[in-house]
């Protein structure tokens, strides 16, 4: 399971957000370049199509593949009160043949996207990952070199934290308290719920980018 929240930030403020995250997380940023291929199962595999995501990490010289299955979100009154989304996730590393494997199983390509940005992996009560990336689409199949952003002026910010059925409440509260620190720049919410931009973002970004200001007497 994982707890996840998403938010958006204007591209012009991404640098300021990076500075803020650097200060909050205490770890170095890691570049992120991920080719995400989303496959849907064919009719031979059941009446209800299932979706599987293959994630190819292009950052290293040797690309690594991960299989990711995102399950349904937790429902119920308790889930509604949480400010984060808790959902089942199954992830596994895979060899580079995984795409062939799934095609052989009968999965078909549904869509693909390329995420380019950076990520912070840190511990703050619980293991957390913040990714800031621009989501790019490919005009032709698999053509990652010519990917263009879906929304040029806006990038996606995602905070995820792994959880289990026993620990998800603590993890959720840790994630939401971390998100409060990002409040001057952006608001984060459950995926699917839009937040808009924050009015103080410009000023907050300006102050983050400045070197402190003030005049010496």
């Amino acid at each position: 399971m994982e707890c996840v929240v998403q938010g958006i930030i204007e591209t012009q403020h991404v640098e300021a957000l990076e500075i803020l995250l650097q200060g909050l997380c205490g770890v170095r940023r890691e570049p992120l370049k991920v080719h995400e291929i989303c496959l849907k199962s064919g009719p031979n595999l059941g009446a209800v199509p299932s979706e599987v995501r293959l994630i190819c990490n292009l950052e290293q010289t040797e690309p690594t593949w991960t299989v990711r299955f995102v399950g349904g979100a937790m429902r119920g009154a308790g889930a509604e009160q949480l400010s984060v989304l808790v959902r089942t996730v199954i992830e596994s590393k895979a060899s580079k043949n995984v795409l062939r494997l799934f095609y052989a199983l009968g999965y078909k390509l549904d869509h693909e996207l390329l995420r380019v940005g950076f990520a912070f992996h840190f511990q703050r009560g619980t293991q957390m990952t913040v990714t800031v990336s621009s989501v790019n689409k490919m005009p032709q199949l698999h053509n990652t070199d010519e990917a263009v952003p879906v929304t040029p002026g806006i990038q996606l910010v995602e905070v995820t934290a792994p959880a289990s059925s026993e620990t998800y409440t603590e993890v959720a509260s840790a994630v939401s308290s971390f998100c409060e620190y990002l409040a001057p720049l952006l608001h984060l919410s459950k995926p699917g719920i839009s937040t808009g931009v924050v009015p103080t973002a410009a000023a907050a970004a300006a102050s983050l980018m400045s070197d402190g200001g003030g005049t010496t007497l």
Partner: protein
Amino acid sequence: MAAMEGALQNQPPQPLQQQQPQPAAVERLNDAVQQQLNLKSVKDRATNLFKNITRILEDLDGHARTNTTPKWQDLLSQYSMVNLELFNIVDEIKKVSKAFVVYPKNVNAENAVVLPVMLSSKLLPEMEVEDNAKREQLLLGLQSLPISTQIDKLKARIDMIGAACESAEKVLADTRKAYCIGTRQGIPVVPTLDKAQAAKIQEQENLLRAAVNYGEALRLPPDQRQNPPALPMHLVDVLGGGDGGAQAFPEASGMYSKNTPVSSSNLSGQSPLMQVPGSQLLGRSAASPGGTSITNFDNTTTSPLPYANSPRSGTNIMNTPSPQQQNQQQKQQQQQQQQQQQQQQQQKLMQLPPQQQLLAQQQFRQSAMQGLGQNPLHQLHDLQGQAQQKFQSLHGQHQMQFSPSMGHQQFQGRQLPSGHVPHGIGQNQLNPGSQMNRHLSQFSGAANSALFNAAQTTPNQMIPNMSATMSSQSLLPRMQPQFEMPGNNPQRSHASQILSDQMFNMGATNTGGMMPLQQQHGSQGAFGNMAQNAQNLQSNMVALQGTPQNHPNFNQQRQQNQQQ
């Protein structure tokens, strides 16, 4: 004057009583002073202020004792209120402080220390020294100049300081506005976005979120989903030259017809013993059911040819796994000796009562599995395809666990260790299971026993393991055209099939239970029957109740196919 002011400031709550006129006659302040200062109101204000400060201090104390974090915003606002009030009171009194004098009535412990300082007209020696030092510092370098110059310079300094203070105030105000904190006494000014801009951003945001979460706006039209002109580096070797997109492997039929030559090329690190079984199997598949005497148990079991002839291959189930089949063949050849031993054991098994047979089979299987050490999970694919076959093969006394027969034709050519051919049921039902058994037995000992043990335990736990093991191999789409698996997790269904295969392996003796399975449409009666006979399977069977629904369908399909 300074002392007086100090006295006033130090004693705002109290001094007014001392300053009031004597009690005998209600004396009044000088009228002039009274206009400037409403003494009573000042006193009331002072007492109120005193009460507020005491209350705040008590709150803070409470916070400190209970170790709770106070709400700083509230505290800060209260502090600012109190501060402001004090400032105002002092300001008012300052206006008329010249009219008042500190007139102590008596000396007591309380004011004994303070009185001399208050009444003195000269500074204390220490204070005087401090004063002089500060004056020196201030007039450094200026004392030599004429007074007027000194005055000018000091004025300039004051102006500079004043300007610095103003700029600092400005910066503070700007930052406050930007962060929406608000001015000291004003309401926060929230910078609002232009409406049009906000709408545009909202639209973009919806687009982005939809793209990331649901894939909207990212789907290419079908005509653009052809082979890409140039594949990126990480996909070049994955997708090869031309089978990008959702293409099934098209090699199936070709492989089947010429399995032997292809097999050797595909098998990596396996001894190329494929040739023999291929030809033999060709011959076998044509044989009539039960007609041929099966002398070489091993050879009958593994050929992929039956796929080509079996009804399942006709339905394109056996699309791709030719490398697997070839691997099977190799494995089978390598296991010839083991299988011969197994045959003998099987014959013995046949004659045991069912439960004992079951146990014996389990042991048998495990021993066979330990003997096998190759391509552990390759056979899993076959398992999936053969789940149904497994069902049927276990019917009756026929225990073909280690004789993988694929389709009735294979069965015909196959060697039945006990010679019990349950004609009543028909060969269709017998074949698949044996093939499955064979494949299972060909797994590596570790993998197989892992699967086996997993099957013994909770099937639910099994399924993720199965998925893991299965995903580590290349799953071939053998099942695709035929198998309509309800449920949305293909891995799960595969796993369930494998699981049930193993279950059936274990319950091989309970072939009676298999029968209703074949005849019932989607019924789970078979499982119930199975459970009756095999107690150790009971829990597993119950757990499998949900999954085996595939099998009846498959059975049905197979029957239909075979009949066609």
